[in-house]
Each structure stands twice: as C-alpha cells, then as structure tokens.
C-alpha cells in the first residue's frame, strides 16, 4: 500500500482551502463570541491559533521545492 507524505500533501490546493476555511470558521466564532470569553482566554486562544498557522506555513514552505521546478 502506498503511503502519503504529510509535508507533500500540504501543498495541495484542497488542503490549503480546507485550512483557510477552518481558520475562517474558528476565528469568526471566536470574534463573534468575544464578549463572553475571558480576556486572557481570548488572548491566548488567538496566540495559539496563530502559532498553529505559522507552523503549518513553515511546513508548507519546506515542501515547496517542486513548485519552482
């Protein structure tokens, strides 16, 4: 059975669109409910989501070599 490389799959447009949609949904929910979330929780959640995004972007940039060939 053939395996799928996680890094390589990150450059697929479907994965990118999925990540963008998840981001939009999570952040829309968070900012819509900002009034009912404690400020510290709001702050740390934003940081956490952003850092997860940064890690994914870093992995994507590592797996991009073939895009330039």
């Amino acid at each position, binding site marked *: 059975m053939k395996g799928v490389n996680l890094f390589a799959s990150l450059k697929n447009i479907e994965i990118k669109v999925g990540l963008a949609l998840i981001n939009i949904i999570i952040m829309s929910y968070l900012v819509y409910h*900002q009034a009912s979330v404690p400020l510290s929780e709001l702050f740390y959640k934003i940081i956490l989501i952003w850092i997860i995004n940064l890690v994914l972007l870093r992995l994507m940039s590592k797996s991009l070599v073939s895009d330039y060939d």
Partner: protein
Amino acid sequence: MISYLFFGLVGYLLLLLAIAVMGEREQSWLRRIAQGPWVYTLSLAVYCTSWTFFGIVGSATRAGTLYLAIYWGPMLGMLFGTVLLNRIFAIKRAYHITSIADFISTRYYRSSTIAAMVTIFTSIGVAPYIALQLKAISNSFKVLNDNSHDGVVFWAVEEFSALFLIVFTILFGLRRLDISEHHPGVILAMAFEGLIKLLAFIALGLFISYGLFDGLGDLFGQAESARQSGELLHGFNNSVPVSTWLCYLFLSMNAFFFLPRQFQVMVVENTDPEHVRTAQWALPTYLFLIILFVIPVTLGALLLGLPSESADSFVLLLPQQYASPWLTFFVYVGGFSASMGMVVMSTIAISVMMSNHLILPIIEKLPSLSRLRRHLLPLRWWLALCVLAICLIVLSATVSFLLAWGCYRLRRCCSLLPQRLAV
C-alpha cells in the same frame, strides 16, 4: 521636547539615507543582504503603515478583536501566496511588468486605455491615503508636545517630512531609468524601517506588560474586574458581526497582494522567486509579533485611565506619561517609519505608473511633445513631486474643511478610517 525629537529624527533620517546609499553600491555587503530573502520579507512589512502602528490600538479599543482581520487576511493569503506569486512572477518575466497597471493591462493585450484607467483610479485612491500618513507624522509630533505649540511648528514638521520624503524618493527610487525597476537602496531602507517599527511596538508592549503591570496575568486580572464592573472595555463587550469580519478579511487579503505599493515591493522589486518561500512563513510571523501586544497595550492604557477618545494616540501617550524619553522617541520613530515606508513606496509606484501609462501615451500621440521622450527621468521626478504636493493639498483641504466647518460627520469618518482600513 521639540529639540530632542527634531534632532533625533534628523539623525534617524540620515541613518536611513546612509543605509540606502550602501544598498545602492554594487560591491557593498549591504547590497548582498538587500538581495536576500530576509530583506525581501521585511520590506513586505510596508503593509503595516501608521494606521497599524497607531490606529490598531484605537481599533481594538472601539471594536475589540475586529482588527485581527486586517492581519489574518494576509496570513491566509500566504497559504496560497506561493501558487499565486509564482504565476505572477512568470508573467512579470515574460512581459517585463513594472506596475500593477501594467499587470492588469497585460491581461487585455496591453491595452493602454485599461492601464491609464488603473493608473487614474489607483492615484485617486492612494492620494488621501498618503495624505493621512503625512497627517499621522505631524499629529504624532503634536501629541508628544502636548499640543503646546502653534500650528506653524506642526505645519513646518509636516512640510519638512514631506520634503525629505520627496528627496528620498527621487534620490533612491527615481534617480535612474531601469527596465527592471529594482531599487535595492530603497528596499533595504524599507526593511530597516520594518524592523524598527516592529521593535518599537514590542518594546512598548513589554514595557506596559512588565514595567507598568506585574506581567500579563496581573494585567488580564485587573482588566477582567474592570470589564465586569463597568463600561471601560466596551470594545470587547460587543460581538463582532461575522459579515463585517469576513469583509475585512477578504479586503485585507486582496490589499496585501494588490495595493500599488505592495505589488511594487512583492512583485516588481523581487529579485528571486525563491524568496517567497521565506516570506510565506516569516511575514505572518512578523505580523504575529507586531500585533502580539495590541490587546495588552489597549487594556493597559484603559486601566491607567487614558480617555478612550484618544485611543489612536495611546501608543504615544503611554510612553510619554509613564516611560523614559528614550522609549518615547523610539516609539515615535517607529510610527514615523511606518508612515514613511508607505509614502515612499506608494509615490514610487504611482510615479512610475503615471509616467508609463499616462504621460508616455500622450507624448506618443502628440508629435509636438516627442522631444519629452528624452526627458522621461526628470518627468518622473516632477510626477513624484506632484503626487506628494497633491497629497499635501488634499491634507490641507481636509484640515481646513474640518477647522472651518467643524463638520461632525467628516470627523467621525476620519476617526473611523483607521479602524476600517487599518493596514
């Protein structure tokens, strides 16, 4: 206050000039750095103007986390950035694209009418934007001097800044005709400015979080008590409508790629498509760091009793009232850098577009003007001068209108602009 601010600013401007000169020299080590991925990434931070530096805290005060959309949009854009930019770079190489007007007109068989229309629309759109950056420079100077001097001094600062920006733009952005439109000196200076504004905002955030409060825990604890007991943090007590959030997100994503200055830095000035690989994660990291302390700064200012009406000046008022003059000056320079980067890059982009897509077609159609073809370079200098002069006129006209008529609606509109377009 005025003397140390003024001389400090002059020193900083001279440093920028030196960096730009070194960046232009062929054999200089700074020139090699200027063509690297880190300088490219930092120069993209020209996206963060004074509306980011000053306006973001005002936006957080009024609407809580809505400001995040302006920075979340570019980050989401960078998910697709490599695919999009690779195609744009390929088109740029094939058709020698030198501006956004050029790029759009290429899609329509290099239609000169389309290019001229794009140039006109972008110029009309960018002029008030540049004017507001110039206004931010003089306003920040005014805030730091407690509004204690007459208007002539602030007018002089505004004019002096505009004069320097014109000289800088012409010297390093429009001094020579180059088919590639690469300006390594300017890009290096923009990258340096990007670094300064980032460090200034982080220094301010650390000072408020750990200098004025006992860390983030203490700050959030006090803010939570204040939030439950009153209307102090009304910006965070209201929901952000999802439609507004999505509109901001979509607009900022597009603005990041297609504003004339962004296109100039991202596409036209790019020397190696491989740099996008670094920018793809490094630029969102930059944006993350520059907005990291927005909530702490906003909460700190409100808890310390600064009036929410002057929320756009919190970034300057806090160090002025509670910190050393050095931090105050550093923050002022950060704000100045944010304004200057936008003005310089926008002026270069608009001047190039105007000369290539408005003036040249007219010259070609009118034989009596054909000798002007040989003077394209001085023509661009005049155009840069005209762009900034128009911006100053727009600015003066707006200020006069506000003073003369005290129009509430326009003031309200101006105060909301940083919130709505804080990029």
